[in-house]
């Protein structure tokens, strides 16, 4: 190389200063026999190369060589192209995006790496395309529809969820989540966490081989198994609308201990404070978390008079009548539209209090009491309430030990009520007579679209006829949806004919 430099300097003294660097860049080409063919398209300046053999140089300078069909001079990329590539390469250190023209922005975004630190990208990039790539890069399965159709939102929500799921109190640095807060606060609307890890227990670590009696050890230890306190996080997320929590541990395997699954009082209190402070919350779900009456009441008390809460889901817990009473109070002190208490331990008194609240409620449209044990007393109370209620559309009373008296009352409700569209009475003991009465009630109803009576000891015939009536109702509803203007006239015109059928 040194030789070539000197010779070139001798041959071409005017360009000696330039020739050193040029030679260094083009040295590879001169050594190979057919450099122009193997040359990658990125090498920018072949035309400027200057080497000691001017003849080869001339060949290099030519843009077209007729005898060599594969030869074509790599076109020097545009300066904008070079700049964009440079920006992409140095985006982490020097993020430039908003100053550029839209088409250049697009180009940059298409080539940015999804591994860039969030601190750089979070508040700078709004392009859905980029976040789509980030999501695809990170998770194999992505349901963007679960995140409001926004890839950016999805990325941050899942990222946050991931952090929360693997947060171990006392071990993980809380700054991990709090640092993310300023970056994701504008994008996260839904927090869905289905596992909260308890703090690591020291004795278990001291004697890792002794797994058999670790349970007794844990009991001796006066366990402090509080989980991650959501207060700071919830307060920081300014657009949070949905909170879906399960205090549970997944994949514990043979390390199973009962106290892994504790939803402690302190957890409950901090959660209650957090949701009370969050005025944007619309949906709150706390399922499979062993919430008993006291904890349910603590949470419900914090939700009283909440400005925007619409849906409360406390299914798969241990809530009894007192908790149900609390929920009933909440019904009259909030704008709750959906209440789910499925698979709890609500009995007749709880159902009665709920019915009392429901009687004059104008917000609730869906009530789910599946797999409770409200029995006929509770069922009758609810049926009475439905005679005055003009709002509820969906009612699920499956698996509640209901029987004929409730069915009798419900049939009366069916004849009167025009808002209910779906009732579920499956897994009860309605009985044959109850089924007949319900069929009678159905004959006067024009609005009910779904009525589930499976495994409730109803005669097949009445079930079939009820199904026919439901079908007619569905058709009518469809017609109404197709041309709402004829709704009234068709109802009046087809009233008598339908009764014949």
């Amino acid at each position, binding site marked *: 190389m040194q030789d070539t430099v000197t010779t070139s300097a001798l041959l071409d003294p005017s360009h000696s200063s330039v020739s050193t660097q040029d030679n260094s860049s083009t040295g590879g080409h001169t050594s190979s026999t057919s450099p122009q063919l193997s040359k990658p398209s990125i090498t920018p300046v072949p035309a400027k190369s200057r080497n000691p053999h001017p003849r080869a140089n001339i060949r290099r300078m030519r843009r077209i060589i007729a005898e060599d069909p594969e030869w074509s001079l790599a076109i020097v990329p545009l300066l904008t192209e070079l700049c964009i590539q440079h920006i992409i390469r140095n985006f982490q250190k020097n993020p430039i995006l908003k100053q550029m023209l839209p088409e250049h922005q697009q180009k940059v975004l298409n080539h940015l790496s999804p591994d860039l630190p969030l601190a750089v990208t979070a508040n700078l990039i709004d392009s859905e395309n980029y976040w789509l790539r980030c999501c695809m890069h990170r998770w194999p399965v992505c349901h963007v529809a679960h995140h409001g159709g926004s890839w950016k939102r999805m990325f941050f929500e899942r990222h946050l969820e991931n952090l929360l799921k693997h947060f171990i109190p006392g071990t993980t640095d809380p700054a991990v989540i709090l640092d993310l807060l300023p970056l994701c606060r504008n994008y996260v609307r839904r927090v869905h966490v289905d596992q909260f890890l308890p703090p690591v227990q020291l004795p278990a670590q001291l004697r890792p081989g002794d797994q058999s009696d670790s349970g007794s050890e844990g009991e001796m230890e006066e366990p402090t198994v509080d989980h991650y306190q959501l207060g700071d996080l919830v307060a920081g997320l300014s657009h949070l609308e949905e909170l879906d929590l399960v205090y549970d541990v997944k994949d514990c395997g043979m390390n199973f201990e009962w106290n892994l699954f504790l939803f402690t009082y302190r957890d409950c209190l901090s959660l209650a404070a957090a949701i009370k402070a969050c005025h944007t919350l619309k949906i709150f779900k706390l399922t499979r978390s062993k919430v008993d009456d006291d904890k349910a009441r603590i949470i419900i008390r914090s939700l009283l008079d909440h400005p925007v809460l619409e849906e409360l889901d406390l299914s798969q817990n241990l809530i009894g009548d007192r908790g149900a009473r609390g929920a009933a109070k909440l019904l009259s002190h909030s704008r709750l539209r959906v209440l789910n208490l499925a698979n709890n331990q609500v009995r007749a008194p709880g159902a009665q209090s709920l019915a009392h609240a429901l009687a004059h409620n104008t917000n609730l449209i869906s009530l789910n009491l599946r797999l409770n044990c409200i029995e006929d007393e509770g069922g009758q109370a609810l049926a009475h309430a439905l005679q005055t209620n003009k709002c509820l559309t969906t009612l699920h009373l499956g698996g509640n030990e209901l029987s004929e008296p409730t069915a009798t009352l419900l049939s009366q409700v069916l004849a009167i009520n025009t808002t209910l569209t779906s009732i579920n009475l499956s897994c009860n003991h309605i009985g044959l007579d109850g089924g007949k009465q319900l069929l009678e009630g159905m004959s006067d109803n024009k609005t009910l679209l779904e009525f589930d009576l*499976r*495994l409730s000891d109803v005669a097949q015939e009445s079930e079939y006829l009820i199904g026919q009536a439901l079908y007619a109702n569905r058709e009518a509803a469809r017609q109404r949806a197709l041309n709402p203007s004829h709704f009234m006239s068709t109802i009046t015109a087809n009233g008598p004919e339908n009764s014949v*059928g």
Partner: protein
Amino acid sequence: MNPPGSLEALDPNVDEHLSTQILAPSVHSDNSQERIQARRLRIAARLEARRREALGEYLDGKKESEEDQSKSYKQKEESRLKLAKLLLCGTELVTNIQVAIDIREIHRRVEEEEIKRQRIEKLENEVKTSQDKFDEITSKWEEGKQKRIPQELWEMLNTQQLHCAGLLEDKNKLISELQQELKTKDDQYVKDLKKQSDDICLLLERMEEQVKNVMKTFREELYNIEKAFEVERQELLASNKKKWEQALQAHNAKELEYLNNRMKKVEDYEKQLNRQRIWDCEEYNMIKIKLEQDVQVLKKRDEESTVIKSQQKRKINRLHDILNNLRSKYAKQIKQFQEENQSLTSDYKRLVMQFKELQKAMRHFALIDDEKFWEIWLMNEEEAKDLIARAFDVDRIIHTHHLGLPWAAPDFWFLNNVGPISQQPQKSATQIVEEMLMRSEEEEAEEAAAEPESYLDLPKQISEKTTKRILMLLCDESGFLIESKLLSLLLPLEQNECYLLRLDAIFSALGIESEDDLYKLVNFFLKYRAHRLSSSLQIKPCSQASMEKASMEETSTRSELELAEQTEMEGEKEESLVEGEKEEEEETPPSPWVIHPNDVLKILEAFVMGLKKPRDSRAPLRVQKNVRDNSKDSEYWQALTTVIPSSKQNLWDALYTALEKYHLVLTQRAKLLLENSSLEQQNTELQALLQQYLNSKINSELQVPPTQVLRVPTK
């Protein structure tokens, strides 16, 4: 469901339909309004039918609609119903599992509750019995304490031990039972887990199956619907094709008819055309002959015109030549005139120069003449005055000596007069400036020539250059005093003229008219500067005031001078000289370029303020003559001649004659006196001679001296 009923229901509907169709406006009608009406009715009917069918009338509706509803629509409805059913069934099938699990869970709960209740009962019973046993044992301890005999005590202790062992055994049995139960529960739990996983598998299977089914049926139905649409389309195509063919046939027939008509017409037209052509041919021939004649005429005319044209061309050429000649002549003449002009201008310049020189000379001579005139005048006057004085002396002598009368000197105005009678005309400021500029011009031209005689009565200490510079400065700085119109006019002029005119304007604005004013101004400038210099050493603020004071003083002295000047012209020069000397004593002449241009305006302001007062008093005296008035000269001289009046001359004449006589007498007397004196002289001479002779030695030698003989007269 009920075919006969539906058929019954069908008939009136059909009738109704037919009737409406008959009455209703046709879609194929010619009237557009009617067509619109028809379409509207059709849409309404379709909607009605659809609604009826949707509302459960499908049994009737299907057949009814067969007439007016398409196959595709039917297919769609069928598919929809089928799919809805499928979905419903599928969902039911899937959810059945959930329901089954629910009910199982309920049963489990019920059983669990039952078992729990039993267990609690059992435990309670157990507690009760064991408590009884325990009570029994504890009561026996009391008994045992009363036992004295060891044998009995031992027995009792044995029995107690047995009882305790029994109690423990019971408890252990219960514990083992419960443990057994727990184990079975564990097994149950494992079984349940397995069952649930099976259920989930089943659920997944069913869901997949459901999805598959639904997809399959959806595809099928889609295919069916497409097929139906296809068939309908084919039918439509066929019917339309038929219609199209019919229309085409009709069209063809009509076209044929039209073609025939056209052929006929074509023939007609051809005939007509032929006729027309013949007629046109004749006409054409006629016109042709006529036109040929015209052509002949025109050709002749053309020839004529070509001749004229050539003539014209020649003429043009000639004229061109003339024009060229004239042009060259013109150019020559221009050159000539230019030369002439040049020579004339040079002549003119020379003449102007000459004229200027002449003027200069004239001015010079005028001045010299003036001076000479002055001198001559003075000489003459002196002579006259001498004469007059002599006359007066004579008169006085005559009066006093000869007449013995007292003599009074006659008092005439002209006796006191010295120099030419006319008042010295004051030059205007502009004139002076002009002169000065002219002179400076000359100076520039002459460069190192001897210092020109200063016929301007400038104050001594102010050199001409200084004045000029000050004026230049003034001119440059106070341009605002000049009217803008004038400025524009001044632009093309020569520098000196320009300055002159400018200064003129400035002077008129400042109110400077006379020479004196100009010098005052110049002096003022110089003084101001001197003050500045001196005051800069002293206290600054007093400079203005002191300057004001100085200017006031100056103006006051000036005004005094002015008065003096009015009274006696002669004095002015001396006065100014004196003043100049005085000033010279006070200050050395400062150079004007030390005056800062910025101060010029201040100085001017002060000057104008100062100038105002004296000017008011002097205003009426402004009128002055420029040309010398020599009307009084003769009078003056005449008066000088008549200093001695005629009466006195008469007196003198008489006296003269008398004196003449007296003179005569006196001359005679003088003659006599002379004679007398000569005689006396002779006498003395003779006496001397005698003496001489007497005193000679010869006498002594003589015996008898004559002296003794003679009496010598002694004096």
